[in-house]
């Protein structure tokens, strides 16, 4: 593991790295290195399987993170390759030429996060949702409760009394440092 990370460091440059467990490491790299690095890992190292590809929305940083989890099934260890891309552009290189099932992952991320993978088949084809007319639901700025209230009314007739507020009200809780 250390040797492979050292080689990634030398050849591709690592922005940040983290060793979560003996059999799990994570490296953050620049977006332009994704395809070359993953190709190299698949062709020349034992990390041949793409276990999953997922996205994280770092709304406050204005970035998406794509995490590729590569597994070495013989050596029984995994490497997470993470890349931060701009939330504005939200475009990343497709890896479906390396792993066929990446198409599904990219299709889902395209639908749920609105990240575009040019060249990947099925981009823009609905995978899970049907007739979706809002911002992609997995984005952090999508408010599911607000959406639920608009589209899926709840059964009326419920009333909750928050004990903390109720008690304050009953006893006449008051502040004196402000009017």
């Amino acid at each position, binding site marked *: 593991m250390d040797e492979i990370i050292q080689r990634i460091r030398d050849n591709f440059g690592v922005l940040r790295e983290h060793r979560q467990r003996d059999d799990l490491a994570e490296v953050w790299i620049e977006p332009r290195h994704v395809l070359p690095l993953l190709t190299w890992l698949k062709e020349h190292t034992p990390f041949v399987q793409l276990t999953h590809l997922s996205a994280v929305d770092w709304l406050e940083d204005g970035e998406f993170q794509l995490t590729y989890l590569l597994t070495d099934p013989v050596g029984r260890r995994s490497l997470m390759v993470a890349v931060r891309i701009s939330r504005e552009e939200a475009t990343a290189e497709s890896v479906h030429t390396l792993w066929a099932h990446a198409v599904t992952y990219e299709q889902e991320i395209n639908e749920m996060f609105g990240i575009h993978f040019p060249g990947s088949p099925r981009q823009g084809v609905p995978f899970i*949702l*049907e*007739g979706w*007319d*809002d911002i992609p*639901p997995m984005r952090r700025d*999508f408010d*599911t*409760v607000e*959406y*639920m*209230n*608009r*589209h*899926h*009314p*709840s*059964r*009326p007739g419920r009333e909750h009394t928050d004990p903390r507020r109720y008690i304050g009200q009953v006893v006449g809780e008051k502040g004196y440092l402000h009017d």
Partner: protein
Amino acid sequence: MASSKFPLAPPEHSRPHAPMGEGCFLGETERQQPLALKEALAKIKNWFRANSLWVMAYGTGCGSIELRPLTTARFDMERFGMAMRPTPRQSNVLIISGYLSVKSLKRVIRAYEQMPSPKWVVGLGSCTINGGMYWDSYNTINRLDLYVPVDLYIAGCMPRPEALLEGFGVLMEKIKAGEANGWNHYLEQMDWYKENQKKLITDWDLPDYNW
């Protein structure tokens, strides 16, 4: 509460409709029969109906996993005249087994409308009543009775097979008493149901009624 988006439910909505017992709203015409005979015939019909509930095998959600044991010898639903049928055309009970995504709802409406009358809808679990544990999900409905008429709710998450059997017992009683008329209600209040359905299903591409 954002229910203002939806029209107010008709007064009798979600409650058993006034006992009809006889015929179907769109079908049979008034026949010149004495009232006593009419009532007796209705009773007989309802008795037969209650004792041959055929359930459509459509697992709309997680609750359907507890339907499967019902068909085994352990819980044996067939002793109550109930059986699983593969197609809506052969069934008269539609079980909504829990939460319903918007995508499924569209298929459920279609399947429901294809079922021959008389037909009954059973809502399983919390999700059909008030959204259950997916109440805040953007993709699941919270109230089933806005879209299809529900004749019986069985609470649980999920209701276990024995609860289902008990629930079907209640349904049978209601049918025998001529009180389970959701299918009639659906036809009477078609506009209201369609309005709700179309409001939610934005890419509506179904015929307005699937005979």
